[in-house]
């Protein structure tokens, strides 16, 4: 029976618990994208997931973000097993809890920067224009994505994720389509957001340099977490080369 209501237990709002999660593909489930993965993420963490192509890092991001279902296991956020949610509540979870940032920004081409951010606005949270201000794009509010550079588009995407003040911010190769300078700017923006320590930021990347800025680094191989390292003194973004 799928859950029809999303009621969080305030005591656990700050954590995500992934327990024995597996994700299989193929007719006979021959592809194991995630194989019995367990981990816990806490508010304030800036987590980088590293891994080769096809290792399962994006799949892990997708199942945490409610973009994909699991084949086995459970994912708990604030006391709610999100794998048990109905479609409708899953949408609510994505709308209220999770913010996504994609490699190719995925902005609506027919909406202006401001309107793209407005799409994700939630009552009682930040205003879209303030989110754009936060990423330094208030002067581009009325521009369409086609009128923006790649970096600007990604900043709009960050503003869109930011506007609803998500508890979890999931970034899938956020610098993958950008030059190193712009990429650095984006990572800096994410790190600045992390200063408030009010959300979990997870960045999936194949670029190990980004991992040097993180306070936790997970390495995935063949659908399994092969290393989980906490960095006591992460580097500043200015000190690394992307």
């Amino acid at each position, binding site marked *: 029976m799928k859950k029809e209501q999303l009621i969080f237990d305030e005591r656990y709002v700050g954590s995500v618990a992934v327990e024995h999660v597996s994700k299989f593909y193929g007719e006979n489930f021959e592809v194991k994208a995630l194989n019995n993965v367990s981990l816990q993420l806490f508010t304030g963490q800036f987590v980088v997931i590293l891994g080769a*192509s096809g290792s399962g890092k*994006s*799949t892990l991001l*997708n199942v945490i*973000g409610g*973009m*994909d279902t699991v084949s086995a296991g459970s994912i708990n956020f604030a006391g709610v097993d999100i794998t048990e949610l109905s*479609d*409708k509540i899953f*949408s*609510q*979870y*994505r*709308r*209220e809890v*999770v913010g*996504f940032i*994609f*490699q*190719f920004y*995925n*902005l*609506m*081409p*027919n*909406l*202006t920067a401001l*309107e793209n951010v*407005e*799409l*994700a606005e939630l009552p009682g949270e930040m205003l879209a224009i303030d989110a754009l201000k936060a990423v330094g794009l208030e002067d581009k509010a*009325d*521009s*369409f*994505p*086609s*009128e923006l550079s790649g970096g600007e588009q990604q900043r709009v995407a960050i503003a*869109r994720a930011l506007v*609803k003040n998500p508890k979890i911010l999931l970034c*899938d*190769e956020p610098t*993958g*389509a950008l030059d190193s300078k712009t990429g650095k700017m984006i990572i800096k923006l994410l790190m600045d957001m992390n200063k408030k320590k009010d959300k979990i930021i997870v960045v*999936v990347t*194949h670029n190990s340099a980004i991992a040097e800025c993180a306070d936790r680094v997970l390495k995935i191989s063949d659908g399994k977490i092969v290393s989980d390292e906490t960095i006591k003194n992460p580097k500043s973004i200015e000190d690394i080369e992307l």
Partner: protein
Amino acid sequence: MNKVLKKVRGRNIKSNFKQFLSVIFIVLLATMLFSGFMTNSFTLKSCVDNYFTETNLADLWVNTDKVSTEDEAFFEANTTKFDKRLQFETIAEIETLKINSSASIYVYEGKVSTPYIESGKKGCLIDKNVAKDQKIQAGFHDISFSYVVNYQGTDYTLDFVERLTGTMSLDERANTYNSWTVVIDKELFLERVKEKLAEKVVGFDENLFEGIAYNQVLVKTDDAMQTSTTIKNYYDSGATLSKLVYMHGREEVESVKLLNEEVEQSQKMIYVFPIIFLVVAVLIILTTIDQLIVQEQKKIGILKACGIPNKKILKHYSFYGAILCTIGAGLGVLFGLVLIPEVMFSRYGMIYSIPEDYIKLQIPVWWLVALTISMIVLGFIVAFVRCYKILNKNPIDCLRYNLTASAKKLKKRKKKFKKMPISLKMAFRNIKMKPLRLVMGAVGMAGCVALLLSGFGIGDTLSKSLKNDLGKVFDYDISSTYNKSDFKEKLLGDERIEFVEDYSRVYATLSVDLESDKVYVYQIAENSKIFKEQLTGDNVCISKTIADKFGLEVGDSISVSLKDKSVKLVISSTIETSFKNGVFVCKDLEFEETFVSKGVWINTKESADSEKVAEFVNEINGTNTALTIEEEKENVKGRIMSTSTMTKTIKVFGIMLAVIVLLNFIFLILKERTIEIATLKVIGQNSLQISIAVFIEVFIMAGIGMILGMVLGVPLMILILTVNKIELLNYIISIKFVSFLATFFIILITIFAVLFVCYLKIKKVNMAESLKSVE
């Protein structure tokens, strides 16, 4: 390289399967109609030709008072072939079934206008459709009728009871609607007459009996015009004592006329409706294939970047257009020539008595090949032109193609739209990005709406035409024909009947200067309560259709003749009628009674049930037929069945095309916007919220199409009716407001059904799959 390209092609077909399918369907529907109606027309023409040739349909019908031995010698010498015949109208009964009706009895050998025996054997044959409708079984049921025979100067009424030996189709009576035709073999009839006379006349001597008085000669000739002159001269010369009553050619035989009209109408049908459908379909095909190739722009860029020659890429993509059209046209032609003639002939079979042996599918091979090739070439050219345009770009421009490229048309937004809901903004901007798709979609929808509306309009026109004649021009509850003088007395005795009005009808020749045609002449009561136009004294009213045909106006003179009697009349008014066309008079024209059909129009009291009164009238001895006005309407509808079939086909195909146009439009949108949809889902919007922008876009497109279609539907209906005009019916063009509403609601329901499919598709969009990053 070719091998890889082939693989790409195969996989593209798989991934674009739904769009490809919709193109195939559109081509299929268009070619199906065209090939179907064309095959039907060719088959019907060949069937009618075959029928008339194989059964030796007469070229001339010579009606005399008596065919003498001299006459026979004359016909032997001056015609290719001839057959003498006795023809008379009588009330025939099939007692076991308690059925009686006015029947045409033909007694002859059958050398000319040979009856085609459908079942049983020669002897006493009844029309196959009548037998089927009345559940009459040859070899089981008897038919009884009376005939007056002269023996030694005295007339004897002989009552015959003859076992039906078989069922048949008679070429000159192929339109057996409401008419009984019985063909009796000459030898058998003669034998029966002698038997009956022997029973009735004491001392009957076979040698003194002069035989049956044949009153008609059926003539086969190579030159009907010349032969008719020779025949006329012969009778005028005094070489025979017989008298020529009336002579006519095939043009005056109703069934020949109707069947030829059907052939003509079937030919016209090809050039209106299927062509309009084809044009609409071609527009849709153009957009769809064009959009399919545009979506392939990135792949074309990759192929170009890989150094594959433009020629190869062009060939590769032009193949899509060609292959889709080949499959669609191939299937369409096949289904068309199998299904449509089948449907049409089952309809023809209800109206006409056509021997199945003569129905042989005639496939217009070259036309169909030309049609298929045209569709293939069309698909090829569209794909080629679009691909050629793309190939003119740099590979990098092709590779950069995505929605953002189209979005370049969008400039900074105007403040005034700031308050507009976001879904509406998205819809409007999507339209701005792809205006051509909206235009083509709207044109497609307009075509569908116009087809549907014209279908309803034709229905309204037929209904108005019927209501005009049966209800407005003639306002009665029951009409009945009778053959016994005490019929009316029995009728008036029933308290449910309010009043009864006499009328008579005769099929006479209307002549104006050198032109002439057969028309019905109705003799109606003075100041009739039934007929709309009040006639008194010498007043003559004429149907507008006939007046228009002869270029007549009020005050013009006409001549009406039957057999040797001709009457001059002056038109005092015209009236718009649809199928009860004729000349309406109130004075007695004193035509020979044998040819005058007598009837009454009955109005029942308000509280009475017309159907029950009609049943009562039918049971009165002396009634030929009694029909309520509704039954009469149904009968007329039966006679215009092919037009009704066409109307239904138009409606069904209009809806089918609308479904395909809408699905196609939606599939194109969804295919193009999968990433957008997935992103919106990730943001937390639910499927319904996401669907709204698409719904608005569809509604705008369909709305424009609907308005256009409503405007175009009326002229389209007039065009269809004008081209398909038949002599039987004068269309009183009409389209009701309710038809506009019905069209609107049917299209609306179709839109909602398709939008539901769209909603399900949006719901199914897989976020993780659609938004995969590139590593």
